């Protein structure tokens, strides 16, 4: 009995949208990935809060699985960042626009 669920979810939402702001506003690929991490963490907080609210452990298990998947995703994406830096020499997101119309 600590806080209303709304507050937990508000924090989680704020974290999520901060992460979204980072993804949208930053041009460096690494910063975009960091933004994604922040968003995932926000989601994790919401999951944990829900798990406590409904007295269910499933939420926490989801957080664990989320962490595991995140680590897998990060390793591949950072490997790709390295590759891109080697090939193109720049990590600016707007430099990779060969799919333009």
């Amino acid at each position: 009995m600590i806080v209303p669920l709304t507050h937990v979810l508000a924090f989680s939402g704020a974290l999520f949208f901060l992460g979204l702001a980072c993804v949208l506003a930053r041009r460096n690929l690494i910063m975009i990935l960091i933004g994604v991490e922040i968003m995932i963490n926000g989601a994790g907080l919401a999951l944990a809060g829900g798990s406590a609210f409904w007295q269910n452990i499933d939420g926490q298990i989801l957080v664990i699985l989320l962490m595991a998947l995140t680590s897998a995703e990060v390793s591949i994406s950072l490997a790709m960042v390295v590759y891109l830096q080697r090939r193109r020499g720049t990590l600016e997101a707007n430099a990779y626009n060969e799919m333009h119309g």
Partner: protein
Amino acid sequence: MATILFYILGFTALAATLLCITRRNPVHAIIYLVNALFALALLFYLLGAPLVAAWEVIIYAGAIMVLFLFIIMMLELAPDQEIKGPGWLRWGPVLLLSLVLLACTVLLMVADPGSSQEVPAYYASPRTFGYALFKQYALAVEIVSFQLLFAAVGAYYVGRPEQRKKPKGGTP
């Protein structure tokens, strides 16, 4: 007591995240993010998930963020790899959008009458957690382990040395 702590930690996390996303130097950003993750881990503990809190620190802050740091340092990114653009021209619309989104989300949340209830105290011991994980979610565990294998193989492949003059090392 826990309530006050909750709010302090929550705002710490938010402040740290805010600082993180506005740093020019990626290393600084990572450090601030680690800070936020620590606050988040304590929040998890307050919400009755001690194991998750521990893992947050070990895996997330300890492995993933360290990996980020490794890669940043390996790539030798100069701090001015950022576009020097007018700050508010880029940040302004984004923050506005985020605020609007946040407002919508909050509105949606408060519209539900049941949401103003308080989160009851909860505690999930590692034993309960273990049982649940390996009994109910055993299949998920196996799948995630496959996933990790794929990721490892994929990361190696993507980052393999070039078959040219100077093979730069680059596998995690």
